[in-house]
């Protein structure tokens, strides 16, 4: 998976608890992305980063925050998890902006919010 790891790979949590997912890359790529994948919706962009401490919102950012303090790590936080955030979360990286560059995806994190 192109030097991308996600942790944890599986998590079950309860409504109202905070959750942090981690994406780690060894490729030194500038751009990092968080997506969620749900049946019938394909992949939807949550947040992305175009450099250390530079982030922007995606299509479905409500209820999520991100941080990137180092090139290699991009954290996704659910401040207070809800059942609607049950999903599979994918991290992706690219050398440049998506306009001209392919994205490399991590293996995914399956999150269940009870």
């Amino acid at each position, binding site marked *: *998976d192109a030097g*991308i790891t996600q942790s944890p790979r599986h998590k079950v949590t309860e409504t109202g608890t905070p959750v942090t997912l981690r994406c780690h890359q060894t490729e030194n790529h500038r*751009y990092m*992305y968080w*997506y969620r994948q749900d049946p*019938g*919706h*394909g*992949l*939807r*962009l949550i947040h*992305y980063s*175009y450099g250390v401490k530079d982030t*922007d919102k*995606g*299509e479905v950012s409500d209820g999520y925050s991100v941080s990137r303090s180092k090139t290699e790590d991009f954290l996704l936080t659910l401040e207070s998890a809800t059942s609607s955030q049950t999903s599979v979360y*994918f991290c*992706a990286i690219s050398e440049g*902006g*998506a*306009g*001209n560059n*392919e*994205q*490399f*995806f*991590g*293996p*995914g994190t399956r999150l269940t919010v009870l």
Partner: protein
Amino acid sequence: SQQGEEDPQALSIQEGENATMNCSYKTSINNLQWYRQNSGRGLVHLILIRSNEREKHSGRLRVTLDTSKKSSSLLITASRAADTASYFCATTGNEKLTFGTGTRLTIIP
């Protein structure tokens, strides 16, 4: 909302046959990309076609792009069991990709 929409949603063919999937989108694009996802795995990039290109090949893959119709097609020739997967088109503005909902391809041995 999704930019790309794949058609059909599901496709089953015999091994050795060709598989064609279509993608339609709504607004102007910089380029269009196709990705494959095997069950339980992350997406893998297949091919990128720029808005000024009409056709591109990569091994058994052939992608066409018709910007006047806002559509693209992915052809997989001489299909193999290992091609069983979901296939997604993704359109790009500047820094973000917007994915369609995918075509589920099943190759019957």
